[in-house]
């Protein structure tokens, strides 16, 4: 059996890669892709803790399913925002969407 810490290290690595993507990409759609990667790595953690803890307690898997639903909702609203911004300002570059910047 694979040690629990390996799963946790893998998910920490994926989370960090996603974080780097969110912080550096300029395309708003690519920023959302990074957020998806971060949510996904959290799900790996949840499933791993479920398996290595008490298997009869289903909280880990149920939580993972709720994270799926939240990710779907986030993507729908996020992409709708991107389309709406593109229609108004004709850009998806996050640097250029600075109407509310002081």
């Amino acid at each position, binding site marked *: 059996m694979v040690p629990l810490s390996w799963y946790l290290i893998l998910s920490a690595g994926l989370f960090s890669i996603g*974080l780097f993507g969110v912080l550096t990409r300029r395309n708003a759609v690519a920023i959302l892709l990074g957020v998806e990667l971060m949510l996904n790595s959290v799900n790996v953690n949840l499933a*791993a803790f479920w398996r290595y803890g008490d298997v009869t307690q289903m909280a880990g898997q149920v939580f993972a399913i709720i994270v799926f639903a939240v990710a779907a909702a986030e993507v729908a609203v996020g992409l709708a925002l991107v389309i709406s911004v593109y229609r108004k300002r004709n850009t998806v570059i996050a640097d250029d969407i600075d109407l509310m910047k002081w």
Partner: protein
Amino acid sequence: MTVDLILFLILALVSVSTALGMLLSRNTVYSALFLVLNFVTVAVFYLLLGAPFIAMAQVTVYAGAIMVLFLFVIMLLGTEVLPASNILPWQKPLAGGLAAVLAVEAIYLLLVRARSVAQVTSPDVAINSMDNLREMGKVLFSTYLLPFEVTSILLLVAMVGAIVLTKKEKA
């Protein structure tokens, strides 16, 4: 035993390299396709952990529905490749430093401080995934009924929000 380990290492290599490919490819369509591959490998991780339902949900919801939506929007807007810019030259090193600090910190804590946690768990009991699935269905509609319903309201709100945001405004 060792088969698990070898499988885990190969999958970990594939998932980390596809995540890096997502990060480094300049074309957003390639980024999205790399992320699809990453989601599929994570689904195999779920199978390895004995959670077939969330593995299948991962493939259908993430790799299927969400990524198709992403590709649709990327191709609809036609902004796959953006011109390079140097508005914030310090952004990339700073973000790399922050992400590296986070990764190193988490891995350090897991390797050094939490060694006992890694060894205390040895779930050698094989789990029956069918019983497991049945149990999850029961729990989802009894103990976790309220979160389940709240999730459905969240999805409804997101649907209405997406429609309202993309609707053409009357000029």
